[in-house]
C-alpha cells in the first residue's frame, strides 16, 4: 500500500500490513500476552495470594497425606455421597477436597462443596477470599465486565490480527536466520528493530502455536458456521460427539458401573483399605503419581474408591487420565474404564490446545512456556515502541508531534508500564486489605483498574520520557517489595518456602523479582540516556518538545 500508487514488491506491502495490523490492536495484544503469560502460573499465583494455605506442607508420604485427609473428611462431611481429594502436586501445597451432600443430586455444579485441607494434618484451612490468578486468566480472553460473547469476539479479532501480523512479519524478513544472531545495542531505531526481531524469531514456533490455538480455543464463538451447517443447528449432538473423543462408535468414556451388589454391611476403615490400593496404582503406573482419590458412598455399604493418575501420559487425549476403581471393602479391582480412542482431527486439536493451556506441563516445560510468553510480550512491546521510534525523523521534519504519534506514545506507556503496576497493585491489595473484609475480592480488582487508570493519567500529564522513567521505577519498586511483603503478611517468604521445598510459592516470589529487575533495567537504561542527552553541549538547538522514547 503506497500513497503514490507506485507498484511495490511483496516485501514492502507485507511490511505495511505488518505495521498496521500490529499497531491497531497492539495494546490489546500486549494485554493478552502479558496476562496470558502470567496465567501459566495461575495456580501458583492463587496459592501465593492465599497465604493461609502456605502452612500446609506435604510430608512427601502419599499414604500419610491420603490417610490424614480421609480422616479430615470424616469429620468435615460424614454424610456426603462422594468425596473427591485432589492431592498436592508441584503446583499445590494443600489437598483440594470437594464433596456432595445427600439430596444435592439435581443441584448441578452448585451442589458441590469445596474445602482446602492441610496436607499433613487433614484439617480444613479457610483462606481469604480472592479471585487469585483466576482474575488474570479470565482477563486474558474475556477481559472484564462485559458479556462473554462480546469480549471473546474482541479477543478473537485481535488474535486474527496477530496471526496476520506474524505471517506478514515473516514474509517481510529476508534474513530471518541471520537476524536471529543480530543485536546492535545503542543504535536507536536499529536496536529496537533487532530486539523486536530477536524476541519474534527466538520463539516463533511458540508465537504461531499460541496464536493459532488461541483461535481454536475461541472457535465455538468465532466459527460456528460449519457446526451449524453439518449438524443442522444441533449443537448438543456436536458437543456429545466431541466429548466422546471423536473416535466414531459409541465409546463415551464414562465409567461403567459395577454390577455386583455388595454383600457386606461393615463400615470400612478407609485409612487401612487405601494403602494396598495406592501400592497397586504405583505398580500399574510406574513413575506416575496418583492425582485424585474419589470415594463413592463413604462409610456406607458398597463404597468404592477410584484412583486417578495425575495428568495424562499423552497430550493426544487431553486429560484422559488412567483410572483404577476398587471395592472399598474387599480391595478388589473393578472393571477399568478405557479411555476413548481419539480421531486424528480431535488429536490435532487437542495437542495444539493443550500446548496453549500448558495442561500437564511439568515445572521445566511450564517455565519454558512462561519464558516464551515473556518473549511474546516483549515482541509486542518492542513492536509498539518501534512504531514511535521509526517516526521520530518525521516528527523532526514536521517540527511538531502529530496527534496520532502522541496517542501511540502515551498509550504505550499506560499499557506497558501501567499494566505492570496495576498487576503489582493487585498483589499488594491482596495482602493489605484485611483478610476478613467484606467485598475484598471486588476491591482487589477495583484496585487493579484504579492503578491502571492512574498510570494512564500520569502518562498523559507528564512528558513521555519522564513518564517512562517514573512508571518503570514504580513497577520495579512495587514488584521488588512484594517478596518482602509476603512473609510480613502471613505467607511463607523465599527463605522458608525454599527450605520447605514449596517451589510453587518460591517461584512466584522469584518471578516478581525477575519482573522487578526487567523494569529496573528499563529505568536505568532510560536514565542513562537522559543524562547523556542532557550533559554534553548540544550540537544543534533541540526542539523544546524533543521527541523522547525509551
Amino acid at each position, binding site marked *: 500500500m503506497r*500513497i*503514490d500508487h507506485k507498484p511495490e514488491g511483496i516485501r514492502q*506491502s507485507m511490511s505495511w*500490513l505488518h505495521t498496521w495490523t500490529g499497531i491497531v490492536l497492539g495494546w490489546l495484544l500486549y494485554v493478552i500476552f502479558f496476562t496470558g503469560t502470567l496465567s501459566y502460573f495461575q495456580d501458583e499465583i492463587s496459592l501465593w495470594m492465599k497465604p493461609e494455605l502456605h502452612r500446609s506442607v506435604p510430608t512427601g508420604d502419599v499414604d500419610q497425606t491420603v490417610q490424614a485427609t480421609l480422616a479430615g473428611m470424616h469429620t468435615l462431611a460424614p454424610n456426603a455421597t462422594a468425596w473427591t481429594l485432589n492431592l498436592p502436586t508441584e503446583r499445590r501445597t494443600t489437598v483440594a477436597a470437594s464433596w456432595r451432600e445427600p439430596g444435592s443430586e439435581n443441584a448441578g455444579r452448585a451442589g458441590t462443596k469445596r474445602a482446602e485441607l492441610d496436607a499433613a494434618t487433614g484439617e480444613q484451612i479457610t483462606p481469604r477470599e480472592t479471585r487469585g490468578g483466576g482474575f488474570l486468566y479470565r482477563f486474558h480472553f474475556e477481559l472484564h465486565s462485559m458479556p462473554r460473547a462480546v469480549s471473546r469476539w474482541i479477543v478473537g479479532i485481535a488474535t486474527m490480527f496477530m496471526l496476520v501480523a506474524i505471517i506478514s512479519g515473516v514474509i517481510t524478513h529476508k534474513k530471518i536466520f541471520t537476524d536471529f544472531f543480530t543485536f546492535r545495542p545503542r543504535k536507536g531505531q536499529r536496536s529496537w528493530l533487532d530486539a523486536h526481531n530477536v524476541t519474534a524469531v527466538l520463539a516463533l514456533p511458540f508465537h504461531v502455536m499460541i496464536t493459532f490455538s488461541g483461535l481454536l480455543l475461541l472457535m465455538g464463538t468465532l466459527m460456528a458456521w460449519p457446526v451449524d451447517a453439518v449438524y443442522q443447528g444441533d449443537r448438543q449432538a456436536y458437543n456429545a460427539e466431541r466429548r466422546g473423543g471423536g473416535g466414531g462408535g459409541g465409546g463415551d468414556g464414562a465409567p461403567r458401573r459395577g454390577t455386583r451388589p455388595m454383600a457386606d454391611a461393615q463400615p470400612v476403615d478407609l485409612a487401612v483399605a487405601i494403602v494396598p490400593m495406592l501400592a497397586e496404582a504405583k505398580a500399574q503406573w510406574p513413575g506416575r503419581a496418583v492425582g485424585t482419590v474419589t470415594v463413592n458412598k463413604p462409610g456406607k455399604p458398597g463404597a468404592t474408591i477410584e484412583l486417578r493418575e495425575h495428568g495424562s501420559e499423552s497430550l493426544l487425549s487431553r486429560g484422559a487420565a488412567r483410572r483404577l476403581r476398587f471395592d472399598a471393602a474387599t480391595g478388589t479391582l473393578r472393571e477399568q474404564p478405557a479411555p476413548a480412542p481419539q480421531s486424528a482431527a480431535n488429536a490435532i486439536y487437542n495437542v495444539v490446545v493443550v500446548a496453549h493451556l500448558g495442561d500437564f506441563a511439568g515445572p521445566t516445560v511450564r517455565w519454558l512456556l512462561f519464558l516464551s510468553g515473556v518473549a511474546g510480550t516483549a515482541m509486542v512491546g518492542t513492536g509498539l515502541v518501534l512504531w514511535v521510534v521509526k517516526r521520530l525523523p*518525521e516528527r523532526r521534519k514536521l517540527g511538531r508531534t502529530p496527534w496520532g504519534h502522541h496517542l501511540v506514545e502515551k498509550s504505550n506507556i499506560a499499557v506497558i508500564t501501567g499494566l505492570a503496576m496495576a498487576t503489582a497493585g493487585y498483589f499488594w491489595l491482596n495482602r493489605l486489605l484485611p483478610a476478613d473484609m467484606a467485598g475484598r475480592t471486588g476491591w482487589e480488582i477495583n484496585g487493579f483498574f484504579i492503578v491502571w487508570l492512574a498510570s494512564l493519567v500520569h502518562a498523559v500529564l507528564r512528558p513521555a520520557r519522564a513518564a517512562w522513567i517514573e512508571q518503570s521505577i514504580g513497577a520495579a519498586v512495587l514488584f521488588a517489595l512484594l517478596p518482602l511483603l509476603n512473609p510480613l503478611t502471613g505467607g511463607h517468604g523465599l527463605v522458608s518456602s525454599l527450605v520447605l521445598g514449596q517451589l510453587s510459592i518460591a517461584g512466584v516470589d522469584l518471578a516478581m523479582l525477575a519482573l522487578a529487575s526487567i523494569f529496573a533495567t528499563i529505568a536505568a537504561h532510560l536514565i542513562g540516556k537522559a543524562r547523556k542527552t542532557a550533559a554534553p553541549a548540544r550540537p544543534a538547538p533541540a526542539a523544546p518538545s524533543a521527541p523522547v522514547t525509551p
Partner: protein
Amino acid sequence: MHTTPSTPAPAQAASTTLTRYRWAVAVRSLVAIFGGYALSAACAIWLGHLLPALGMTRLDAVLTATMLAFVVHACAAIWVFAIASTWRAAIGILVPAAVLAVGAWAYGGAA
C-alpha cells in the same frame, strides 16, 4: 508506512492522492476483515459437507473445516494486501465468497 508523499507536490494533488490512498486502505481492510471472514466460513461449511464423502466422520469433518477456516481467513487477508489492484483484491475475495455462500445456503436448504 508511507504516510507522506516523498516529493513535495501541489497541495491539491497531494490531498487527492491522500484521499485515494485512504479509500484504498478502507476498502482493502473491509474486504480483508469481512470478505475474508465470509470466504473462510463458506469454505468451512463446504468442507464440512464434502469431507464425510472422503470417509471422515462428520465430527472430524467439522473440526478439520473449522481449523482450516482460520488459515483461509489469514491467507485471504494477506492476499488482499499483497496484490497491486484494490479492485481485483475486492473481486477476488467477494465473488468466490458469495458463490460459495449462496451454494452452501441452497445445499443446506435442499438437504
